[in-house]
């Protein structure tokens, strides 16, 4: 069994939108929204050569499942799969897929958006950019984000 057969997974394997979609396809669904995060070459003037993602895998998968539960509670009838790749990635590689199916299209966008925003808030995965002129971990260079208390999105000052 491929690891991609798990709907909530953090893996070194290449991700596939077809496989992610299969997790959420079902007869009650009229709409499926797939958000795919890919490795972008240019960020302003800076050129990315490649990226490396690191994760606290066990906890990250647990948090992905938690996000899935949140979505299913908020959008009844939805199905969710969230897959994140880690390790070295080249330009245009798929880093993350959020797949959500719902009966109607409006909620598929809302729910998918909720998924990716929550990933960026609470899932312990870190991106290291390898620029043409250096390297850096993303997320803490500015020092503007402080997690002072408890779970992100629940604490009083969890996100800048």
């Amino acid at each position, binding site marked *: 069994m491929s690891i991609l057969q798990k709907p909530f997974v953090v893996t070194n394997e290449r991700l596939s939108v077809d496989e992610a979609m299969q997790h959420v396809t079902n007869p009650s669904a009229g709409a499926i929204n797939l958000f795919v995060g890919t490795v972008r070459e240019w960020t302003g003037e800076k050129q990315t050569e490649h990226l490396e993602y690191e994760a606290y895998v066990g906890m990250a998968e647990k948090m992905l499942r938690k996000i899935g539960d949140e979505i299913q509670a908020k959008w009844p009838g939805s199905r969710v799969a969230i897959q994140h790749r880690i390790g070295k990635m080249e330009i245009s590689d798929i880093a993350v897929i959020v797949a959500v199916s719902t009966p109607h299209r409006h909620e598929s966008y809302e729910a998918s958006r909720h998924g990716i925003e929550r990933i960026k*808030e609470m899932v312990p995965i870190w991106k290291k950019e390898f620029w043409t002129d250096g390297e850096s971990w993303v997320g803490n260079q500015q020092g503007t984000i402080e997690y002072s208390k408890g779970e992100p999105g629940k604490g009083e000052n969890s996100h800048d």
Partner: protein
Amino acid sequence: MINVLFFAGLAEKTGQREIQLEHIAGSTVEQLKEKLMQEYPQAKAEMSQAMIAVNEEYAEKTDTLQERDTVAFIPPVSGG
């Protein structure tokens, strides 16, 4: 014994990915953090920014640690 995990920039700054600490059970999360900031002064800024997870769940500063807990320092995340 308590297990402590460091990730990403914090692993680089401390030079450690995982350490074991004795005689910590009974302390709060905040007390452990302060202790480690003294032990790894080069990683103080990163530690103060990090969230803490205990046994794979985000913890409050005031939570009390127990024998065999796994404590993870979670620098600001950047997945997605």
